[in-house]
């Protein structure tokens, strides 16, 4: 109590109300916002200015002048439309898959504890620090055309080639994305579950509720904010995923980030790449703002 009174006495400009933080940081001579300027300036130079140039480039076709022609051209092209639908359904599908799988796995770790459960939770953390394309690389060994599964099949049946060809289709990307992004759902869920009062479960169970009912009526309502936050984060990350799609090497699977890459680097068509980029930014920034709102509501 004494320290608090001293602080208010020395920094009289701070009202005695509920804002304790700013007092010492606010220097006498320079206002606080001046200190925020250098990092903002660096960010503007390194990120905002480039972003603005992308928008500018998207409305300047190669012939010069300012027009919306690049947009019209790109929107009219079949490649763009199929890329847009592929991106969206892959992202939605992966998100649903991650939510279901993540919920089940987190449920078992938290509520049917087994020896080694802690180690599994730590493994999930480590998993998050690896790049996404490693999953596709591993899947190539397992389900690739000369991989383990097909090799087994040809050995057993004597057929010329195995039945697994889905890796270069959207299903391969879907499998890789669900594998890689499920831990991103599990982490917030495990955090939420660790705060859940287990006596609630005991009470419900002693009143005769079965596991399914407990999950539906006790656990699920508690987990909903974490599910919403994790799900929307995964949705945004799936929309922007590039490494997984690049590594499958599938010509048939083109997503928006892949289209940006191929337009810019392989075709050197920068206005078109910038148009796709602007569309991609609009979608993912919109969704990410939604995620921020949801997770703030959830208190995460």
């Amino acid at each position, binding site marked *: 109590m004494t320290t608090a009174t001293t602080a208010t006495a020395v920094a009289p400009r701070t009202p005695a109300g509920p804002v304790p933080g700013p007092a010492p940081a606010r220097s006498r001579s320079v206002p*606080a916002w001046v200190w925020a300027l250098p990092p903002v300036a660096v960010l503007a130079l390194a990120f905002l200015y*480039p972003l603005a140039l992308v928008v500018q480039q998207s409305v300047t076709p190669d012939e010069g002048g300012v027009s919306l022609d690049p947009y019209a051209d790109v929107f009219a092209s079949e490649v763009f439309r199929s890329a847009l639908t592929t991106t969206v359904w892959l992202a939605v599908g992966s998100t649903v898959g991650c939510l279901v799988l993540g919920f089940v796995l987190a449920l078992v770790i938290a509520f*049917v504890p087994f020896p080694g459960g802690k180690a599994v939770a730590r493994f999930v953390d480590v998993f998050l620090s690896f*790049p996404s394309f490693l999953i596709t690389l591993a899947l190539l060994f397992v389900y690739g055309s000369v991989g383990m599964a097909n090799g087994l099949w040809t050995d057993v049946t004597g057929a010329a080639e195995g039945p697994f060809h889905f890796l270069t289709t959207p299903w391969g990307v879907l499998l890789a994305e669900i594998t890689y992004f499920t831990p991103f759902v599990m982490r917030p869920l495990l955090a939420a579950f660790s705060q859940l009062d287990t006596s609630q479960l005991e009470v419900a169970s002693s009143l005769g509720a079965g596991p399914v009912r407990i999950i539906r009526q006790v656990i699920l309502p508690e987990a909903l904010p974490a599910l919403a936050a994790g799900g929307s984060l995964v949705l945004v990350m799936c929309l922007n995923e*590039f490494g997984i799609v690049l590594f499958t090497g599938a010509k048939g699977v083109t997503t928006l980030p892949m289209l940006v890459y191929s337009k810019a680097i392989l075709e050197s068509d920068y206005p078109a790449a910038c148009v796709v980029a602007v569309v991609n930014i609009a979608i993912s920034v919109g969704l990410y703002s939604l995620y921020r709102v949801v997770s703030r509501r959830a208190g995460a």
Partner: protein
Amino acid sequence: MLVHSRAGKWATWAVFLLLFVPLFAVPLLVILAASLATNWSGAFPSGPTVERYSAATSGDSLQALTTSLVTAVAASVLALTLGGWAALAAASLRKRGKRLLDALFILPVAVPSVVVGLAVLVAYSQPPVLLNGTRWIVILAHTVLVTAFAYQSVSAAVRRLDPMYEQAAAGLGASPARVLWRIRLPLLLPSLTSAAGLCFALSMGELSATMMLYPPDWTPLPVQIFAATDRGSLFTGAALAVVLMTATLLVLAAVSRIRTRASYR
């Protein structure tokens, strides 16, 4: 707690293992096993060899590893300075300014990293600043990408900081600079180092933006892995991937040692 009968428990664990092992453990094990094999077209890899590792730690691959390490360290240090400074500055702002800074510094997470790569490429391939073709453009893009994570974790830590200490110090007559240097930064050290570890890991594995703008003489390890798998040398790719994972984990372990030494405070 949820399942009480013995049989039910075992059934649940069996389902868990059936889902968890093939999805999460097998991919990493497969990469590890493949990196030690010459051939894999049956149930198990065959032709054990460690030759790939001698190839993966010499010549071009060694250079790619050092490139990745240098890039990741540089980007983490820059991002930590920039993001940490911004987070500390934001903490002393009023609500409006804080919200603006939050939005600005978290924006790079929301923007797809391929687009970040494209933007940096477009902006720095033209005057006034020409960085295209140099290593700096890669480091710049990585810094932009990981700054958001540094900002997020430092600002979360600043929010949890007990204001009592700095108020006491200021009350005893310490200048703001001294409060920052002697009170706030030491208290923030554990979260600063964990933010550094996060930034480092992200930058080590960064592929999307890097593919957009790497110059031929500055190819980080993920690009090298992609080049290997793209030309069909999956096994070389696997060995390089193991090198990448090991390097990342070693640095993360070293960083977390710093954290345990500092967090006794």
